[in-house]
């Protein structure tokens, strides 16, 4: 039995009954509402075909499908919470299952039965806030109707609680008992009313990770843990030169290794061509197990062609960026307000500084990898992903298979941070599997990962500010010279050159009358990608360090200066992701609370320094403060404070985890991490030269405060990072009067001290 319901203009809910008598409610997007009046049976098999989204078993167990890619941001818990809330069940009754990628063909083109499944831009929760709650509420509505029929009572008199429908006279029916008749009921023709926040019993409750038990017992399966009976393990020796190529190779020794089965060459992209396949040329070793493949790879003798970037080095890139900024010609105007030149003429004070930020690798704890099986008329991918849709497209393009015949299964992923938004590793697995004619389990080592990433861009920010007689910031320029994030993107994608490096409306745009932002492109052969809160981690260090420098140069309090710049609480236009508005009052509030919590402005005589910063990221407002001291060559972080406003916190325990983790990621990265290039090769190989923070160097705790809010939730995965580096640099200045303007901070500080 199948029926459909319009649930807004661009989506409809689909409801069906499984053979086992379970009520199934799914969501899919359509490009337009289905034609009214067409009986559901005539809409084709897609509707009856829906996989479970909410499933109510007859024994009243509630199974909720988690549609997102779980990369550590907690969506396997938070998204089902949204459904469960509106369904009105006890969280303890709920079992969560990971849904696969839900591709379907529709008359309107490709669609997804589960809605948006990617993990990027911290949007999972804000998307689910709409459609996932609707899915839960619609299922509840049907169950109530079924009970009303059963009892001959008007539905309005019934209420629900913990998976049961209750009549005014005390009679009860479990959802499980009602599922079959509920599924036979015509769905509502109007969207069903959602709960009022006062009625929430699950949303807003600290909730632990649903599959924690599997994780701590080792039963949880990540992409790397998937095997197929006849799959060969593949590792690839990739060209270490940017855009280099394979000249020749000798695999005689490799083939002698017991367990090695085959060796095949993999072609990389041609210089200048889009990155819509593998990232580099290479030689793949296929073996019966990982160790044989690794041993075999070590014994390969390969000659590489160096490619067009063999002269590229980090030093030259920095020199080039500074030269572009010095010459100040031919930049791309990103925003232009008022008349900066005039403001400068009239200024009482001008402050200028440049800040440098390095390339970064994602270094997901689980390296990239994929298990793929390609048959005559179908394919199956199991992997840790952030963009299952992109993976499906990639496989279709490379195999010629129809997308509906490509099964994509996401597992729990050992970190994402933006690395898995790319599917180059899927492309490699396809090529190797096609060459081998067998299923392939592609493994990446840490060396592969650090050497072949889509790196966070490198750049130099040149900032200047003018102050008027009343010490107010009257003019502002932000010029950024960087390796542009848009670089050889697949699918013919074109974005403005400043994307991901310099945003028109970011602070203090709209708050300073005379403001210019200009972008200069630095040519580089390094692949670039999205790295956790991409734009924001890239430039907040510069902007929020600079505010501190202005405060110091003009003898103002750094918190008061920020508050003065933010001005009256109001909403100003914000065209970037996280807009359309930026609320100055919400940013001021997290800043004020953060200052109060760390004890800003209190007199100290212990030599510790306190630094603070705040930033608006993707709709979330965050402030950080640190208390630090320098002991010998050690930087000690005595306190770490993070105050965040992400709207209503769906799972406060999860938001706290993201802020804690984001803070530590921010510290780890700001203190020690950089990817550098020399003679066209990435210089870092494994954790010893890309030293993530360990427990001994991390602050004991992160004091997280979540601002209570009725605003619709935004995600939390990325908001905890951007304000960390500037707050840290500001604290280091307070402790030492040394201003670090180049990341990573520790090597620079040690050089300057």
């Amino acid at each position, binding site marked *: 039995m199948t029926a459909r319901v319009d649930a807004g203009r661009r989506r409809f809910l689909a409801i069906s009954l499984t053979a086992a008598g379970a009520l199934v409610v799914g969501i899919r997007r359509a490009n337009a509402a289905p034609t009214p009046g067409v009986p559901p049976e005539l809409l084709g098999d897609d509707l009856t075909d829906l996989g479970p989204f909410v499933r109510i078993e007859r024994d009243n167990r509630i199974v909720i499908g988690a549609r997102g890619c779980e*990369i*550590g*941001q907690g969506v396997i818990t938070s998204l089902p919470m949204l459904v469960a809330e509106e369904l009105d069940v006890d969280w303890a009754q709920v079992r969560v299952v990971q849904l696969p990628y839900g591709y379907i063909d529709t008359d309107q083109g490709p669609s997804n039965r589960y809605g948006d499944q990617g993990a990027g831009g911290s949007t999972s929760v804000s998307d689910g806030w709409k459609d996932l709650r609707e899915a839960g509420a619609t299922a509840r509505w049907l169950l109530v109707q079924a009970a009303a029929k059963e009892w001959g009572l008007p539905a309005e008199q019934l209420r629900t609680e913990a998976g049961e429908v209750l009549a005014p006279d005390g009679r009860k029916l479990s959802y499980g008992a009602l599922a079959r008749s509920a599924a036979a009921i015509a769905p509502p023709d109007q969207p069903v009313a959602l709960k009022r926040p006062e009625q929430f019993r699950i949303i807003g409750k600290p909730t*632990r*990770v649903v*599959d*924690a*038990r599997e*994780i*701590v*017992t*080792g*039963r*949880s399966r*990540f992409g*790397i*843990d998937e*095997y197929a009976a006849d799959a060969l*393990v593949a590792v690839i020796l990739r060209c270490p030169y940017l855009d280099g190529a394979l000249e020749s190779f000798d695999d005689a*020794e490799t*083939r002698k290794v*017991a367990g090695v*089965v085959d060796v095949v060459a993999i072609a990389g992209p041609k210089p200048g061509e889009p990155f819509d396949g593998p990232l580099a040329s290479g030689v793949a070793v296929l073996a*019966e*197990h*990982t*160790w*044989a493949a*690794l*041993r075999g790879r070590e014994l390969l003798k390969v000659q590489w062609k160096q490619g067009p970037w063999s002269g590229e080095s980090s030093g030259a890139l920095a020199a080039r960026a500074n030269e572009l900024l010095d010459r100040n010609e031919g930049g791309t105007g990103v925003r232009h307000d008022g008349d900066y030149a005039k403001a400068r003429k009239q200024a009482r004070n001008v402050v200028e500084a440049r800040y440098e930020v390095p390339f970064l690798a994602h*270094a*997901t*704890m*689980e*390296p990239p990898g994929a298990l793929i099986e390609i048959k005559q008329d179908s394919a199956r991918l199991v992997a840790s992903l952030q963009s299952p849709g992109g993976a499906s497209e990639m496989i279709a393009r490379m195999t010629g298979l129809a997308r509906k015949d490509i099964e994509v299964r996401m597992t*729990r992923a*050992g*970190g994402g941070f933006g690395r898995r938004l790319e599917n180059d590793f899927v492309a490699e697995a396809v090529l190797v599997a096609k060459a081998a004619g067998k299923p392939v389990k592609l*493994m990446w*080592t*840490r060396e592969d990962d650090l050497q072949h990433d889509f790196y966070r861009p490198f750049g130099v920010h040149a900032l200047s500010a003018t102050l008027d007689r009343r010490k107010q910031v009257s003019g502002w320029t932000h010029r950024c010279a960087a390796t542009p994030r848009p670089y050889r993107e697949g699918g013919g994608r074109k974005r403005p050159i400043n994307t991901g490096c310099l945003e028109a409306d970011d602070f203090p745009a709209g708050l300073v009358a005379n403001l210019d932002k200009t972008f200069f492109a630095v040519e580089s052969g390094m692949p670039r990608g999205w790295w956790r809160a991409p734009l924001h981690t890239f430039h907040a260090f510069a902007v929020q360090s600079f505010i501190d420098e202005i405060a110091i140069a003009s003898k103002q309090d750094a918190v008061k200066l920020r508050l003065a710049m933010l001005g009256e609480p109001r909403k100003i236009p914000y065209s970037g992701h996280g807009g359309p508005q930026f609320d100055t009052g919400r940013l001021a509030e997290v800043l004020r609370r953060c200052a109060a919590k760390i004890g800003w402005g209190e007199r100290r005589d212990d030599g510790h320094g306190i630094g603070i910063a705040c930033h608006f990221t993707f709709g979330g407002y965050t402030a950080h403060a640190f208390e630090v001291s320098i002991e010998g060559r050690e930087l000690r972080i005595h306190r770490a404070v993070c105050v965040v406003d992400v709207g209503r916190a769906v799972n406060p325990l999860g938001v706290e*985890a*993201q802020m*804690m*983790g*984001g803070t*530590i*990621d921010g510290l*780890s990265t700001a203190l020690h991490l950089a990817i550098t290039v020399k003679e066209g090769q990435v210089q870092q190989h*494994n*954790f010893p030269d890309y030293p*993530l*923070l*360990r*427990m*001994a160097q*991390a602050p*004991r*705790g*992160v004091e997280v405060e979540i601002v209570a809010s009725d605003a619709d939730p935004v995600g939390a995965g990325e908001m905890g990072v951007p304000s960390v580096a500037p707050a840290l640099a500001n604290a280091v200045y307070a402790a030492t009067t040394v201003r670090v303007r180049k990341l990573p901070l520790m090597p620079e500080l040690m050089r300057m001290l």
Partner: protein
Amino acid sequence: MPDQPAHATETADSADPAKPHPARPREPLQVTINGKPYFHDGDPAMPLLWFLRDTLRLTGSKFGCGIGNCGACTVLLDGKAMRACVLPMSVAATHQVTTIEGLEGDALHPVQQAWIEEDVAQCGYCQAGQVMAAVDLLKRKPKPSDDDIASIGNLCRCGTYPRIRKAILRAAELMQGERK
């Protein structure tokens, strides 16, 4: 298997560890993992991690660096935390190996229990290794100091360290309770 060199190159090369180990009949190694004996007749230099994962499909021990740096592959060797990615089978064979899968008895180990209660995991990938390292620590130091806890050098890319600290203290309490 195609073109297997079989026993052809046996003699001269086999003493040189840099050279591949040709397939030849050798005494299989016997390893005890989670109390059960297993045989390994492949390369004795193969790290234990790949035997656990590829052969036994005990995938709880993870691969993070392959050089003994990150701790994602931590197992217990006679109760002591060791990094399985750099532990040759020939060495593992003479000891009792416990993996994350073997930690649970009738109930969860107190460290596992504490990990759930403190909601430690984010991506979860490092956590099996962290749990094994904590089990080893608490055996040596039933009342660990902050510095003792920080001596655990396992990496967590997600930054769960503060909750790991709390979970270890909680586990210490749970174990204290058990002893009474």
